[in-house]
């Protein structure tokens, strides 16, 4: 029982953390809260299937073997985000943060409506990797195989990202740009390269979230991007805008609290689980309005 809760908490929190990282990465380098991130996720979900109005989806990209499907969908997410940057956010590079944020809302609504036009508004059943639904016996608990994969993937992604930021040239440039973009440029750091890189990473992370959501729920729904975006945005704020470790910690914490509430709330209170969860969020922010890990870069600009 308790082991089951631990795995629920880790896999849910892991996905929240990956989604929150996608937002924090972009906020870090260009102080943009990208509200289109949820639609990057939704578009990556729908990229798996062929356009149709049927209730049961026909797999397109999603029919590829996993070894091809995963890189293909990561590339799709990265490509979508890079294109969004080039055509929407780059022309607004010198606009105010508020204008950028509004533009990201507009882009999100545009993408959502594109999905509605091509795929219809009804949720569709998708069967992606059904074999991952098999339970695995682990000590006293039965854990779905998918959860183990998700937790493993989250661990690999977090370690890989940390290594990339710490050890590579583009990682160093991103960290420098996150702290003082103007100064980084005066030292020859190319703004376009760093921003495109951040968007590509963010889009690839959105695709990871999309894959996990589809595998977990078996549904493609135009609205699913908005729901995860809300949680991810809250995790980014709680983590301290732009702090990557903060986003990860807050994402994990939200997932863990959510799993705990689900397990220990009395059954009649369970439908209100999210009210308890967000009540706790309000409490945390009352005591630490700057977030759990306020980043140095977020402060002087606000």
């Amino acid at each position, binding site marked *: 029982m308790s082991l089951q809760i631990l795995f629920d908490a880790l896999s849910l929190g892991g996905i929240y953390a990956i989604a929150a990282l996608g937002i924090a990465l972009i906020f870090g380098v260009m102080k943009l809260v990208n509200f289109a991130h949820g639609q990057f996720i939704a578009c990556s979900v729908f990229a798996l299937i062929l356009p149709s109005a049927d209730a049961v989806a026909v797999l397109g990209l999603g029919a590829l073997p996993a070894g091809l499907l995963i890189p293909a969908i990561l590339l799709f997410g990265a490509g979508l985000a890079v294109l969004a940057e080039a055509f929407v956010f780059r022309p607004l590079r010198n606009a105010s943060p508020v204008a950028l944020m509004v533009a990201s809302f507009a882009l999100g609504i545009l993408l959502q409506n594109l999905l509605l036009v091509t795929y219809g508004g009804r949720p569709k059943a998708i069967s992606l990797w059904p074999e991952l639904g098999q339970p695995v016996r682990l000590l006293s608990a039965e854990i779905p195989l998918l959860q183990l994969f998700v937790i493993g993937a989250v661990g690999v992604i977090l370690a890989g990202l940390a290594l990339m930021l710490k050890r590579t*040239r583009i990682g160093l440039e991103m960290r420098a740009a996150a702290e003082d973009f103007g100064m980084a*440029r005066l030292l020859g750091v190319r*703004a376009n390269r760093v921003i495109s890189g951040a968007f590509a990473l963010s889009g690839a992370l959105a695709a990871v979230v999309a894959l996990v959501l589809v595998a977990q729920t078996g549904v493609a729904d135009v609205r699913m991007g908005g729901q995860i975006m809300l949680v991810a945005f809250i995790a980014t704020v709680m983590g301290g805008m732009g702090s990557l470790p903060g986003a990860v910690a807050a994402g994990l914490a939200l997932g863990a609290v959510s799993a705990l509430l689900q397990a220990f709330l009395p059954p009649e209170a369970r439908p209100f689980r999210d009210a308890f969860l967000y009540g706790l969020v309000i409490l945390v922010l009352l005591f630490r309005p700057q977030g759990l890990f306020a980043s140095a870069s977020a402060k002087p600009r606000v």
Partner: protein
Amino acid sequence: MSKLGVHDLSVRYGKLTALSDVSFTVAEGERLFISGPNGAGKSSLLGAISGAVRAAHGRVEMDGDILSGHSPEGIARRGLSMVPEGRRIFRALSVQENLMVGTGLRRDRAAVADDLATVYAAFPILHDRRHANAGALSGGQQQMLAISRALMTNPKLMLVDEPSLGLAPKVVDEVYDRLVALQAQRGLTLVIVEQSSARAARVGGRMLLMRGGRVVADGDAASFAAHDLLSEAYFGDPA
């Protein structure tokens, strides 16, 4: 051909004119001080040269290449480096990471390693603290880091904005001694914003005096210190 040529350069912020029709040239290897009261346009001038501030009109040339209109990173890649006002070191990065940020524009890996060794030899404290967060350094150490960071881009021309700001006089002398030694060693051309003409005179070099967005005098720094031109610029025309 001069190293740096500034021609009729003007900067406006909305209706406010910060710099109007400034022209001067700097020779290869020269050390030029820019002095003047607050609001004289010194930082706007450096900003417009480095590309951080957009010029309303006029042009900047380095080695005959026109810099105006290029991005700050494009200008840095042509060999101009900046030690900005307030130092602006990356506080969350380690000392060594700070030094490496500006080496992305270089292809000469071996020379980068040599330059790192040179910088560490000139500033041993930076070597001792190379793995520490740069934010943990003292003000003087941060100034030395900002200068070293600019040197690591292998510049031909270096702009230094108020290196003495917020530092104890003894530390300021040390910073200038190192700056002069590094200039001699590497054949750098230096443009330094310095409020105190006495300090500029002690270090030695040419000096431009600015006031109200214009250059009002140009000459040897030592002659300014003795002369009352500077107090005139600060306090207005003598009665």
